[in-house]
């Protein structure tokens, strides 16, 4: 397992004693049993307190935990609410939470810090305020906004970052940001504990940037996005989903070009539902419902309190172990499945040597000589391990733009290249730089023709 020193400002014993006095008798007695005693599985560097003797090492460990460790929680949703609760009950008293969302009624079946009267308010604010109201003497600050708004110094200000996100994009961003943060200075390593759930399944993992495998290394483990070919949607619909996609992708832009579709607006969903239903009738297809319409257009992933609790608790358990060294931490991935029995699989996910974020080998792609630039772009979008949505390409050495998705001026200028053979623009062994607006980094791909 990787040796890693957690960065903490060393407090002096005097700093903490005041804060500790505010606690009622027995508040931390469950925790102190673990923190004050050595354990056979704990790292030998673990320095417990010694019973009731108030010597400096005893104060030290409690203080690291209780007052001086700043933790960032990304996401105040299903996982985030659980994470905040678990952290403050585990002795973390200095927390910041970021979330850009506002509370929706469909959050209430699991996001237990919110009440019906909170619908419409920012999640980060309501969650932080609820925690501080319920749990005495903890500081939870919040930022209602995007993680991309924050700079390196902001992220360096935390000892640990726990993510409970539902978006691949945001995870890739924070992962790449934390890896890039390190540079050649190991003291800039900030551990990322990442959780994710989908229905009865989920995973918790510990990412030590540049040391362990990172989020980008494991993109190929993501399930394939369900997409429907446009020709099926337009010409040969067979499933209710095809009719719903037709309503939202083809019919809406044609009939309501001036109105931006808002999938959170029930009148918009209703409109799509009715159109999809009509089309389904025309083709004798059954099964279009309001709920399915909403599920398809919003790409809804089922979410339940229990799975969130399991994954969030696992993340916080790892955070606690990482900070206190009271037990060894997860190296580095735990998968959970609950639909058929109860099953977990814990393993070490391997670093990918050619990972575009944390690897140092270049990616080589074997490409058919007959490929056009457009074919190549489609090919990139299909590759599971790189997950690109709108890739823009340039020649890495000459800097020549092969195809740029934006701004419109460059798009127009490079559009004719789409029909060209890739080999006309990129020679055997040349390198292409791929960027995507969703990525905080660029990919370097060496082209090898077959």
């Amino acid at each position, binding site marked *: 397992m990787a040796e890693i020193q957690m960065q903490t400002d060393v407090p002096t014993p005097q700093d903490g004693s005041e804060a500790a006095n505010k606690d009622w008798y027995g508040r931390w007695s469950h*925790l102190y049993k673990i923190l004050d005693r050595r354990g056979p599985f704990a790292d030998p560097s673990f320095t417990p307190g010694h019973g009731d003797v108030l010597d400096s090492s005893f104060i030290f460990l409690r203080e690291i935990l209780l007052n001086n460790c700043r933790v960032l929680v990304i996401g105040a949703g299903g996982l985030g609410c659980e994470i905040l609760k678990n952290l403050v009950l585990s002795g973390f008293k200095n927390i910041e939470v970021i979330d850009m969302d506002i509370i929706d009624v469909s959050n209430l079946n699991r996001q237990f810090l919110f009440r019906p009267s909170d619908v419409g308010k920012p999640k980060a604010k309501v969650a932080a305020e609820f925690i501080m109201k319920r749990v*005495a003497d903890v500081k939870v600050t919040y930022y209602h906004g995007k993680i991309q708004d924050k700079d390196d110094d902001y992220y360096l200000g935390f000892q640990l970052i726990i993510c409970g996100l539902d978006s691949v994009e945001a995870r890739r961003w924070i992962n790449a940001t934390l890896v890039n943060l390190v540079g050649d200075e190991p003291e800039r390593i900030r551990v990322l504990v990442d959780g994710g759930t989908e229905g009865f399944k989920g995973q918790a993992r510990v990412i030590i940037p540049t040391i362990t495998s990172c989020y980008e290394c494991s993109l190929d483990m993501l399930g394939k996005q369900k997409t429907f070919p446009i020709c099926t949607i337009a010409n*040969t619909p067979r499933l209710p989903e095809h009719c719903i996609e037709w309503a939202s992708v083809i019919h809406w832009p044609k009939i309501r070009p001036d109105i931006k579709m808002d999938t959170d607006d*029930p009148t918009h969903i209703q409109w799509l539902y009715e159109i999809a239903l009509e089309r389904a009738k025309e083709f004798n297809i059954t099964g279009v419902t309001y709920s399915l319409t909403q599920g398809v257009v919003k790409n809804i992933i089922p979410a339940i309190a229990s799975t969130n609790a399991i994954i969030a608790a696992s993340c916080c358990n790892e955070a606690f172990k990482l900070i206190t060294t009271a037990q060894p931490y997860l190296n580095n991935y735990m998968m959970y499945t609950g639909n*058929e029995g109860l099953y977990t699989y814990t393993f070490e996910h391997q670093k990918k040597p050619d990972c575009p974020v944390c690897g140092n080998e270049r990616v080589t792609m074997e490409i058919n000589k007959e490929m056009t630039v457009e074919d190549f772009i489609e090919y990139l979008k299909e590759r599971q391990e790189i997950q690109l949505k709108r890739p823009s390409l340039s020649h890495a050495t000459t800097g020549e733009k092969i195809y740029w998705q934006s701004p419109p001026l460059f798009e127009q200028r490079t559009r004719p290249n789409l029909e060209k053979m890739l080999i006309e623009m990129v020679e055997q062994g040349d390198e292409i730089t791929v960027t995507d607006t969703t990525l905080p980094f660029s990919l370097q791909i060496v082209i090898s023709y077959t």
Partner: protein
Amino acid sequence: MNVDKKTQKYDRQLRLWHANGQTALETAKVCLINGTATGCEILKDLVLPGIGSFTVVDNKIVEGSDVGNTFFLVSDSIGMNRAQAVTEFLQELNEDVKGFHFSEDPIALIENQPEYFLQFSIVITTNLPEKSLLKLADILWNAKIPLVIVCTVGFIGYFRIALPEHTIVEAHPENIIDLRLDVPFPALEQYVKTFNFGALGSMDHAHIPYVVILLKYLEQWKRDHDSKLPSTSAERNEFKKLIQSGRRNVEEENFDEALASVWKACTSTKIPRQVEEIFKISSCENITAESSNFWIIARAVRDFAANEGLGLLPLAGNVPDMKADTPNYVAMQNIYRQKAKEDASAVRARVHNILNSIGRSTDSISDDEIDSFCKNASFIQVIRYRSLQEEYITEPKNADIGRWLQDLQENIVHYVLIRAMNRFYESYNRYPDAATFFLEDDAEEVSEEASNDFNTLKAYVNILLREWKITSYPEHLDNHIHEICRAGGSELANIASLLGGMVSQEVIKLITKQYIPMNNTVIFDGVRSTSSSYIL
């Protein structure tokens, strides 16, 4: 707006267990014995999805340490009755759920008035001593009420389900496709005959559903091979070549799909073994007025298969998406659906006959319930849990425990320690609680008191090992004994919450009778972040 508030609130879970699962939840009465941190976390994850009601049975007074590890208490709760205090905070989570508290000593209640627990749909216990547990387990077992026993200590969590029988129709398998390619029914054969591949234009040819392609070539194959399907891999390859020969160009995706399904097409459709086993259970043979709906329908399906079903289960009727034009796909889908409907209606007739014969009215089992059973017939499950009596007294799994204990990766060691810890508690009315582990260069000596806890706990471990007829003491147990002494009966918020999630998820599966619950013990090790399940 055509969706009510409640459907909106529960949208993300209705996509997993649907309206019928939700109704089951909303009528469930859950009892929690002891409002510990773990107990409250379990209830939180049941109140949020909307169980009918919960009742906390606990007569303890809230202490400072409870407020420290339980989110549903505040420092003002100190000194109050714990059942009442946690109920008030848990109740806030969902206005649709009723919360009750009963400030009674659970141990005395089990001893003096055990019938109290028969009013619940499920009972969950935390921190209950062995003797009370066995008595409660016995009463609930006889009443067929599920019991879930939960314990967390330090970084370890344990829970156990006890219930005589749990039947599942909606297991929600990920792949539910039954196309009968090897044994096409007449309407399907008829439909395939309407295709003349050679006469089709290129567009239509590229849109023949792969099911039709396979059936067409299988028919040809069977004509040339004594009506037999390709059975060896050489034959399957030859059959693939036959399909390839009909392909007009590489662009025809429907032929790709056909080729990818050759193996499936050549596998004979039959009743899955696990379903055959269910049909052999005596509850399926001996239907009485007391039989549950599950067994009545199971019997009807068994009889259907033995007669008009020609050895097969009722058809599910689902058709996966495939490359095809709309009219052909819809027509084929309707043929499968029609056959499924016919099968279900034959099963319905048999169910009604059985109901008549046992004096129950024919509308006491709904058509929906029968249809759902038919759709899921290949995936039905029956779990017969072992009783706690069997595990603890009459038939402990001596050999298995002994074998599992040899493997250092196994989590069974925590089971041994939790059982020993509970024995310790019953004798001393406290948990082992001391710093007993030191490094060689530690200046301190183990205090006498501490070494007593270690030795006493180890003595209980040895008693258990003897009971299980395990003759040699596995040395690695020492470290786990140290770890339990270190934990001192503590409940860490993270482990409480993790177990809360696991337990509530299993409870939801039991109540909704959907998805497959674990059987019968799960142990989570928060040191290694692993879990195991055991049949104990």
